[in-house]
């Protein structure tokens, strides 16, 4: 048997730990969290078993039934049935079940068994089951099911040994194929009951701690208060923890830029290195700590199991604005980046709810906008305490996130009004057990996000910054020029051209110009402004840029720009994902069009109100 390859597929109910198992088997770093529907795609990995056999492992989205009701469940159905394009049916199905919740999960095991393929049952989360005093007669369960059963603890390194040994051993014999009809479906529940009675004892149905926590977390009054407090704390922390580190990084780059410049002969190359690389890239890199602080909170919340509770509390509100409680998690992920957020909508069953969520997801302030916000807030909003405890800058940041959310509610509400199909939408959402976030999972998540940021920085952002430097420097001014050199450069001409469109909302030509690279990657707006002002001789590095902005344009323009970034059409990658996920250019056009209009109108109002007030 050795030297051959074996294809195994991990299937099971949502949130039973398939991806954690996958990561543990293959050494992968796929995202895991504590809510149903983290995995929405099929993921493939491989590892070599002790026998020398190569194992291909497929991680599939969780599903309650092979009778799929959402796009992610359909993938699992197609792969198991061998209908997935370009994917042979797996040699072995590893059905993963949460040992603390067998009454629900065993039904799916029986449903998969009827496909008549070789199968192994992995009883996962055995540590939690033992803690709760759940006892399972594994030998008897295996005998009654007619398939090998192994115990696993996917979050522990040695927790998958039994599974590896089992899949590496002799191939289990497949059960006969059985038809799928309504009568046999009802029968599955009876079989589960018999299995449970014969093999499982549970002291109590639920975890006592969950019940106690939910009494507070889901309380109509305290629950909402806790949710508001959690959200507010996140944004305060981004400022009070992240900002000092950002300043330190910016100072470090300033210092490096000055020293490197001293080594180089003056000329265009020196200008590229100091103004472009250190000024532009250094400024953006400085915002990494803030992004990481935001992610510590998002990842911790995802791991804890709190998010589905928040979705529960907000469902009614979300429905009133044309969304669903299920939109909450994809929308919260969009605070990191709209792309995983939009992909996460695959777990939304209703196609109308899904489309509405996709269209408003980019209004959630993604982490790429954080550098822009942080820069402008740092330059224009005084850092002072309000009511003794709150930082004014943190409050403005919170307000910017809030207007994104309000904008999304408004857009959702309008879509709900114009939607013709008013039939019922389903919620049907499982609330998982609470779990203490694992340092390892949070660290992996942070590392992955940090690397994505650094890769963007050294890829697209660096390239754009060099281009920005180039067009800001060339061509040089004609002899006898009276204006600053940059006014005669390509950047000067382009910026002034764009300014015709953006002058009514208070943007000068430098800002107008920075909107072009921002369309490729939001953070580049900061690098672009840093480069343009540095080439213009106004500023160097992070702290200097804030100062240059404060000198060069009025508060009204700054506020208008902040509002613009809250609503403006998202980056190209997001539009590409909308195209892929909805398979429609029309939705891309709608998305771009409404956001442009919304941003323009909101910035126009902001600018004129601010001018009028000052």
């Amino acid at each position, binding site marked *: 048997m050795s030297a051959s390859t074996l294809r195994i597929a991990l299937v099971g109910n949502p949130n039973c730990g398939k991806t954690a198992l996958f990561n543990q088997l293959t050494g992968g770093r796929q995202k895991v969290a504590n809510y149903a529907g983290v995995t929405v795609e099929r993921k493939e990995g491989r590892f070599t078993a002790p026998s020398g056999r190569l194992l291909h492992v497929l991680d599939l989205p969780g599903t309650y039934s092979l009778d799929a009701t959402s796009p992610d469940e359909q993938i699992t159905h197609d792969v198991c049935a061998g209908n997935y394009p370009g994917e042979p049916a797996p040699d072995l199905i590893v059905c993963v079940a949460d040992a603390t919740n067998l009454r629900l999960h065993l039904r799916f095991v029986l449903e998969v068994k009827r496909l008549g393929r070789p199968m192994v049952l992995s009883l996962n989360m055995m540590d939690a089951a033992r803690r709760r005093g759940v006892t399972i007669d594994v030998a008897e369960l295996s005998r009654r099911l007619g398939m090998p059963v192994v115990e696993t603890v996917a979050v522990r390194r040695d927790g998958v040994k039994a599974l590896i040994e089992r899949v590496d051993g002799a191939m289990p014999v497949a059960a006969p194929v059985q038809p799928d009809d309504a009568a046999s479906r*009802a029968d599955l529940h009876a079989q589960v009951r018999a299995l449970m009675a014969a093999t499982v004892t549970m002291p109590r149905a639920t975890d006592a701690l969950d019940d106690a926590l939910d009494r507070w977390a889901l309380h109509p009054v305290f629950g909402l208060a806790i949710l508001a407090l959690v959200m507010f704390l996140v944004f305060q922390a981004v400022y009070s923890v992240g900002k000092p580190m950002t300043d330190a990084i910016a100072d470090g780059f300033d210092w490096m830029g000055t020293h490197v410049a001293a080594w180089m002969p003056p000329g265009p190359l020196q200008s590229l290195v100091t103004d472009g690389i250190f000024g532009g890239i250094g400024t953006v890199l400085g915002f990494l700590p803030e992004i990481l602080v935001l992610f510590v909170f998002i990842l911790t919340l995802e791991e804890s199991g709190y998010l589905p509770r928040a979705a*529960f509390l907000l469902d009614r509100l979300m*429905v009133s604005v044309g969304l669903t409680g299920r939109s909450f998690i994809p929308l919260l992920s969009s605070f990191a980046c709209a792309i995983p957020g939009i992909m996460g909508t695959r777990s939304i069953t209703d196609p109308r709810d899904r489309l509405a969520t996709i269209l408003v997801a980019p209004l959630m302030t993604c982490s790429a906008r954080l550098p822009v916000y942080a820069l402008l807030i740092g330059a224009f909003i005084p850092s002072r305490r309000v009511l003794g405890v709150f930082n004014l800058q943190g409050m403005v940041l919170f307000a910017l996130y809030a207007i994104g959310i309000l904008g999304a509610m408004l857009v959702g509400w309008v879509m709900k009004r114009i939607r013709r199909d008013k039939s019922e939408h*389903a919620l*049907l959402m499982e609330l998982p057990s609470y779990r203490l976030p694992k340092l390892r999972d949070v660290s992996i998540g942070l590392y992955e996000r940090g690397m994505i940021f650094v890769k963007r920085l050294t890829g697209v952002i660096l390239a754009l910054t060099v281009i920005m430097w180039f067009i800001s420097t060339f061509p040089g001014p004609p002899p006898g020029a009276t204006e600053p050199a940059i006014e005669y450069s390509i950047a000067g001409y382009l910026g002034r051209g764009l300014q015709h469109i953006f002058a009514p909302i208070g943007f000068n030509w430098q800002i107008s110009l920075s909107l072009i690279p921002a369309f490729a990657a939001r953070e580049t707006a900061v690098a672009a402004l840093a480069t343009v002002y540095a080439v213009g001789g106004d500023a160097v590095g992070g702290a200097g840029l804030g100062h240059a902005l404060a000198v060069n344009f009025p508060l009204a323009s700054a506020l208008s720009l902040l509002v613009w970034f809250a609503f403006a059409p998202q980056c190209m990658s997001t539009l590409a994902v909308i195209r892929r996920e909805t398979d429609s250019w029309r939705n891309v056009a709608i998305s771009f069009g409404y956001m442009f209009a919304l941003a323009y109108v909101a910035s126009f109002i902001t600018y004129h109100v601010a001018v009028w007030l000052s």
Partner: protein
Amino acid sequence: MRLSDLPKGSPAVVDRVDDAHADDVIAQRLRDLGFVAGEPVRLVACGPMGADPLLIQIGSTRFALRRSEAARVTVCMQEAA
């Protein structure tokens, strides 16, 4: 009585799930999730706005259901066990 009318905390047993219309996928999914005759259920919590959605405990699982979804499930109240 309907699951949506169940008082908070009182134990009940599922009687049946009715299709609200022909080919009702929501009803089918409810049955798949274990809402079948004889299964004990309990209303754990209600949402803060309009007491919607409902948090239903069935077996070891807690599901959030909207009122309209829960209305498909007929239950019989049990004397406190």
